[in-house]
């Protein structure tokens, strides 16, 4: 217990340890809350419980092997991580990815965004007491994970994007599966909105809660839906386009209230925008064409060629035994992940293993803003504020 000065004189405060096992902390986040009654006086987040040394492990793997580790960063958006890492290495190599692979990547990362936002919406809603939304969201997310399984054989740890393109040819009948989602989702998103947007409890729990001024958000390096809910239309897909995003027509939803409710509206609107992008990408993906860059020595040769051509066999052997060595230098690539600006920094010293791989995790940086959001509010609002940042501890702790 300590004593703090308030407007009504000195009061005794108490320190409450929230987490690391508290269900609303979405994993293993610990927050030391200093409380005056039920009001938060000070909040100190404590992270690191899930630190697995992924950046160090990358230095012991070849460039291709490290892709599998990127899935495990933000495990709700593995394809965004795959994409960012592959783009960074491709930048290092100066590799041009075929348009067909680029559109497939765009389509799948946008589906990832929808799936990730669904988990966010479901868990945020259950934190605030709306049980049914959680079940509906996970029902639709499962449908999207089925598509990932079709493409890559994996529901979550896909590793489907590879350096120079995508792993395998899209499966037969993928158009039908994606089409189904596109037809299904608008109605389902409307369902969530019917349950929440005008719901008096939802509004009472989120409106005016956890406000952050836009200038503070920028100063704290906050990005993604949190920044856009503060009225700053900063979206990497538009500002620094990658993977042919400049060929797609979509809007950046923004709000100006910058509270939990505004962030909810921004994310719901983003799901609708993502559907628009998926639809355009589907139309753009040609039925046939290369899915990998033409770069012998970097991109593994086709299975058939490897079995029939000597040269292809040698490349295959070299890629899988020693890897490839990009020229010395550095590359920093950012993408708009569902949580904000995801950055991968890769430094090469001219050997087949990276000198350094660094991940700029959006939720690690965004979590810094938590004390700003909760100080002066009630403990119950802390739950709403953690949810609204949309943290993934795998990415925060790495």
């Amino acid at each position, binding site marked *: 217990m300590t004593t703090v000065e308030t407007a009504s004189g000195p009061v005794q405060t108490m320190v409450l340890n929230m987490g690391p096992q508290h269900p609303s902390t979405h994993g293993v986040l610990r927050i030391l809350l200093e409380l005056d009654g039920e009001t938060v006086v000070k909040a100190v987040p404590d*992270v*690191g419980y899930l*630190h697995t*040394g992924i*950046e*160090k*492990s990358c*230095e*012991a793997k070849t460039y291709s092997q490290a892709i599998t580790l990127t899935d495990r960063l933000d495990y709700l958006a593995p394809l965004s991580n795959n994409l960012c890492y592959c783009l960074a290495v491709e*930048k*290092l190599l*100066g590799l041009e990815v075929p348009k067909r692979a680029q559109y497939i990547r765009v389509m799948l990362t946008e589906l990832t965004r929808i799936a990730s936002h669904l988990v966010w919406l479901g868990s945020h809603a259950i934190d605030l007491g709306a049980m049914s939304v959680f079940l509906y969201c996970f029902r639709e997310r499962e449908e999207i994970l089925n598509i990932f399984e079709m493409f890559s054989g994996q529901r979550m740890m896909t590793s489907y994007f590879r350096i120079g393109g995508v792993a395998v040819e899209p499966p037969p009948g993928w158009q039908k599966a994606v089409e189904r989602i596109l037809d299904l989702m608008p109605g389902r998103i409307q369902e969530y909105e019917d349950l929440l947007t005008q719901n008096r409890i939802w509004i009472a729990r989120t409106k005016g809660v956890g406000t952050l001024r836009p200038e503070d958000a*920028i*100063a*704290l*390096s*906050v*990005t993604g839906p949190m920044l856009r809910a503060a009225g*700053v239309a*900063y979206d990497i897909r538009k*500002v*620094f386009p990658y993977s042919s995003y400049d060929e797609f027509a979509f809007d950046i939803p923004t709000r100006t209230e910058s509270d939990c409710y505004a962030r909810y509206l921004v994310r719901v609107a983003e799901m609708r925008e993502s559907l628009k992008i998926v639809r355009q990408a589907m139309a753009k993906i040609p039925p046939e064409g290369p899915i990998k860059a033409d770069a012998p020595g970097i991109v593994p040769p086709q299975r058939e060629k490897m079995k029939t051509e000597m040269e292809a066999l040698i490349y295959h052997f070299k890629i899988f035994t020693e890897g490839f060595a990009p020229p010395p*230098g*550095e*590359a*920093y690539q*950012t993408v708009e992940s569902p949580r904000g*600006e995801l*950055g991968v*920094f890769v*430094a090469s*010293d001219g050997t087949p293993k990276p*000198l*350094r791989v*660094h991940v*700029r995790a959006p939720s*690690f*940086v965004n*979590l*810094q803003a938590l004390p700003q959001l909760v100080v002066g509010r009630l403990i119950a609002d802390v739950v709403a504020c953690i949810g609204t940042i949309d943290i993934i501890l795998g990415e925060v*702790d*790495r």
Partner: protein
Amino acid sequence: MEIADLERHPAVERLRAWNPRAAEEVSESRGEVAIGVPRELLRGAAERLRDDPALLFNLLSDITCVDRFPAEPRFELHVHLVSIPHRARLRLRVRLSGENPVVDSLLLVWPGANWMEREVFDLFGIRFEGHPDLRRIVLPQDFEGYPLRRDYPVEGPR
């Protein structure tokens, strides 16, 4: 980009106008412009880059470090900046010696530097002068060593 164009990059020009030594090396590779800043000028350069109306690098994107062990100076601090109004990106590079890896904190320029600097301190052992809360962030407080240094074995100390 040609060398001459790089010398005319607005950030380089403004920094040199402030202090002729501020942009000691300028390079461009893979579409990314990097400016080498001497250690003692980092804070001042950061303030100019944030406030100069022609630059306005208001968003600190990332701070990270590369260990070039056994070369000396072994550490390279990379600071990635974004100017939202001008849609520009820039990287600052600061070289730090292995003997005494200390640099001024950027916390007062961009409050978002707080956890980024703590992470670099935690994993590389680089000290940020003026940081009010320089504790380990992802590792336990009593952890010994700096695991992302190149002379720290991947499988941990034996």
